[in-house]
């Protein structure tokens, strides 16, 4: 493959070489099942325990509060389905059983919808302002007598906006409602400490901080009532059964430890590169619309809409020149609608179609950024110039 510039770290990150090596070593040398009590099993168990300590330490949690999952999607599903199952929502009490925001990841959004359809769960969706922020007062207003869970994400994966989860958590505490936050885009990237944050459940995902895909964790605060989603052999103290993904869990633990060590330095470095993109795009493509909050955003996230263009066309054109970026309206994945997040912040459908997300990472350099900034304007211009009467109504 030619030299490429990977600028889609919010989608996934390459595996840290030390993490890959630790996993390869487990695959080669640790044959046991952690449930087995003989030597090979104990060794595998010890590795899982160590990883649990590493994940817990990074969040200020107790190891017993960490449940390993197969990723962020499962963590979100387990949090929502598990809490509602444990509470058996009262159909007669007033108000929603579940409160979410309009910019949640599909793992939360579609789960809420699925429970609405199949499990008689009532869902309230709290809106956001034009920068993608939830107002904690709206959350307070949404809570009813029947409300059992609030699920509002920490950092948004598309536009990077960070939610005031401390305030939302305080609202939840005051009203005695369990609070879940999808922190897949923040844990490992920003400080996150459950000793000070009023959160009860937190979704975490290894492949967003240089760990492997297919492994994540759910933090479950001691005393939180949660039922299991997947029943079986009783692993993870019955909260998530199935033979442990030992190599993956070791990868998650190591990645978490390394990410925590590098976190503050990386956040600062990436924020600088990110700002270089924000300013560079503003200067070179004046029509560009910044999406997300100007300051309360993930340090690695630069996201825009380019009116008159379409997301997939931008991505493919940039890909052909060696840049990997993404869009909230990639219509190849079968999703032909512009993203719900872009619509939720009030963008016109046609503007939202031209969305582009650029997310820097550990290996991103200034010259990568400058190469991207040089490549982008002619591509935007070319695509825009092909488009039919941009922003006007169809002639049909």
């Amino acid at each position: 493959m030619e030299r490429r510039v990977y600028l889609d770290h919010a989608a996934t990150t390459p595996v840290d070489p030390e993490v890959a090596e630790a996993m390869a070593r487990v695959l080669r040398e640790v044959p046991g099942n952690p449930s087995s009590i003989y030597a090979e099993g104990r060794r595998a168990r010890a590795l899982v325990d160590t990883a649990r300590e590493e994940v817990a330490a990074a969040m200020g949690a107790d190891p017993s509060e960490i449940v390993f999952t197969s990723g962020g999607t499962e963590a979100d599903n387990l949090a929502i389905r598990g809490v509602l199952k444990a509470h058996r929502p009262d159909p007669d009490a007033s108000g929603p059983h579940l409160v979410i925001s309009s910019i949640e990841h599909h793992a939360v959004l579609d789960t809420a919808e699925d429970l609405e359809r199949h499990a008689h769960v009532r869902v309230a969706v709290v809106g956001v302002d034009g920068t993608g922020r939830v107002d904690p007062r709206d959350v307070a207003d949404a809570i009813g007598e029947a409300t059992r869970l609030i699920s509002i994400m920490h950092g948004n994966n598309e536009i990077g906006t960070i939610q005031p989860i401390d305030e939302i958590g305080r609202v939840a505490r005051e009203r005695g409602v369990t609070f879940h936050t999808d922190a897949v885009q923040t844990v490992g990237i920003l400080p996150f400490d459950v000793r000070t944050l009023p959160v009860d459940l937190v979704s975490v995902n290894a492949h967003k901080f240089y760990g492997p895909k297919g492994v994540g964790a759910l933090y479950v605060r001691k005393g939180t009532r949660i039922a299991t989603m997947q029943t079986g052999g009783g692993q993870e103290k019955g909260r998530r059964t199935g033979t442990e993904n030992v190599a993956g869990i070791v990868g998650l633990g190591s990645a978490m430890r390394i990410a925590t060590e590098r976190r503050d330095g990386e956040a600062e470095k990436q924020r600088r590169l990110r700002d270089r993109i924000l300013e560079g795009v503003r200067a070179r493509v004046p029509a560009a619309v910044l999406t997300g909050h100007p300051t309360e955003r993930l340090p690695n996230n630069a996201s825009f809409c380019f009116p008159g263009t379409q997301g997939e066309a931008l991505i493919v054109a940039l890909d052909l020149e060696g840049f990997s970026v993404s869009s909230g309206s990639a219509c190849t994945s079968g999703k032909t609608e512009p993203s719900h997040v872009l619509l939720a912040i009030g963008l016109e459908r046609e503007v939202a179609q031209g969305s582009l997300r650029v997310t820097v990472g550990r290996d991103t350099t200034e010259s990568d950024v400058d190469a991207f900034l040089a490549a982008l304007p002619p591509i935007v211009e070319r695509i825009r110039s092909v488009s039919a009467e941009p922003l006007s109504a169809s002639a049909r």
Partner: protein
Amino acid sequence: MIERSEAARPEARREQQDLYSAAAVDHFTSPRNVGGVEEPDGKGSDTNPACGDRTTITVRLRDGRVTEARFRTFGCVAAIASASVLTELAAGRTAAEARALGPGDVISALGGLPERKEGCALMAVGALRAALVDAQVRARA
């Protein structure tokens, strides 16, 4: 050792696979006949309701033949490439022949399109047909 096993495994082949054919990429990066025909004989548009993409095609006719077709497309790679290749396919054909061009012709001229992208070829075809119908109506008027 790794190299040998790489060569032996099907993934080595699969890894090369591209989303778009070379022809589609070419029509996307160097679209033909972008814009509008001056004082066109016919103009037609079509939209893809699934995604909001839109294509407008304008045509010039001489003696019942398409002498020029131009397009504008707001949409994805497949939508742009489909309209671009269709303006080439239409040129030189009689109006009846051009109206007979279908999405299959567009797709095979592009050397294939990814799954779920058939609608993009259909949109280009819809716009061209609308332009030809428009030309017919205007000619009678």
